[in-house]
């Protein structure tokens, strides 16, 4: 099972990214846990300079923007293959 983390304090883009992540997971009908990380010290542990950030299985895959659904699908597929 994949662990997906959405890094962000709760600004508009972070919420949007969380929605898209949920949608992609549903569309791919896969098992995944989506966690919101809102504490800045925890967010900074991932070495990002702007939110929202997306972390799949503890690996940072995107930061500072909202990736498209297609991109997120690719991230998740790659992570599944690596498992």
């Amino acid at each position, binding site marked *: 099972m994949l662990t997906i983390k959405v890094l962000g304090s709760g600004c*508009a883009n972070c919420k949007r990214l969380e929605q898209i992540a949920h949608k992609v997971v549903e569309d791919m009908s896969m098992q995944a846990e989506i966690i919101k990380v809102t504490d*800045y010290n925890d967010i*900074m542990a991932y070495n990002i300079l702007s939110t929202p950030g997306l972390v799949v299985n503890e690996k940072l895959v995107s930061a*500072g923007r909202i990736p498209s659904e297609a991109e997120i699908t690719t991230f998740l597929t790659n992570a599944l293959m690596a498992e």
Partner: protein
Amino acid sequence: MNILSFLTDLLYSGLGNLASYLAAHVLLCLLPAFYIAGAMTALIPKETVTRFLGRNTPKLISYPAAALAGSLLAVCSCTIVPLFAGIYKKGAGLGPAITFLFFAPAANILALIYTGGVIGIDLAIARLILSLAFGIGIGIIMALIFRNEDVEHDKATDAMFAAQGKMRCVALIFLLVLVSLLLSGTLKVGLLTDTYATLTVPISGMDKFQGFLYNLIPYDSTKGEEGVTAQGAILIALLVLIGITSWKGMENIFDGFNIWTWTSLSLVALTLLIAAVGMSPRSVGLDILINGKFFGVLTALVILGWILKTKLTEDETRDFLWESWKFVKQIFPLLVVGVFAVGVIRALIKPEWIETLAGQNTLLGNLAGVVFGVFMYFPTLVEVPIAQMFLSLGMHRGPLLAYLMADPELSLQSILIISTIIGKLKSWTYVAWVALFSTLAGLIYGAWVDGASIGLVSLYLIVFLALLSALLWFVNHRNEQKSASVPADC
């Protein structure tokens, strides 16, 4: 009796202020400003600036780069806080981080454009230059005061700041055309404001409509209030339409563009064109004055449309529209409420109060401006209409600048967030320095407005900076001696 009519008066004052505000100021200045901010967020890769903020960058580059990052990248708190934490903990250190923190709210692109459009270019430029000088100044001071703690950076590498970003040429052109759209709509030069042709549309009754509006929303031009014209009413109606179509077209933009997206964009273009021309209603019809602004705005819009359609990728267009819409959604409602509240408050404040307190460029007046800025928290950009209210009530431009510098920097909310990252002591030291520098900024700018020569003003500035650096050198020197006297092995 009086309570009811008093309340109605307040309500009218608020609504009147809001209506005249939307009609007069928002369109040619704020609308392009939102799109510029959106384009900057979406199209400038953050790495173009952040790579100068790493730990190994010389101070001469990292401080200005931090200010630049504040101005270009940080309109939204989503960027400000992580970038601040990143620069502080893993990058250039406390000094540039503070410079960034100071500069971002005071001189980001939205705040500058808005100040320039509403209050005056002179105040916008003063805000920019003084924020730059003082932002870097406070950064250096903080770095010196806390330099012992600043060395304990964590051991991560510079990798986070190493990424290279390249901005696409066409994105840069897009941004420049957006800026020229703003300038052609707001600059007051003869070439743009002269009328070149007059078109008479045979719509009768527009003059009556305008008279009706003046009756509905009475105004007193001696108090700096503005009425709503017939043109203003049309523009407000268009704004409402833009709001509705954008809600349908932009909110779901990640599911793809739809007909509403393009409708709302066309409406924005139409609105800007109508806002650019002059209108004078007469009994026989409506005179439309085609001026230079109209041609400037038209040209810019055509180029923008062409780049948007043919040169930008779909992802870029989507990001650009989404970021712009996000700013509108985030800031505009607060601005509407704020402007309404300003209208209500204006009816309550007596001009004599402001005049006694801050009508002159005195130390007390400037302090009053700063204290008001620190203890009142207004959402982003609302400080500008509030400043305009003070100006029309007789506040001197010096204390006004002091207020404008202090208010966005210091709010309880931002102090709390900062203190979770750098600790309470550093936060409050920062607050004290901002208060001091804002007061000085007001005094210096006020002296200039009152007619002191540039030479004298720069002399003040230089004397102050010299005193400050002497003090810092002294503190630094003493600390060095102290640390030298301590045995190395303890």
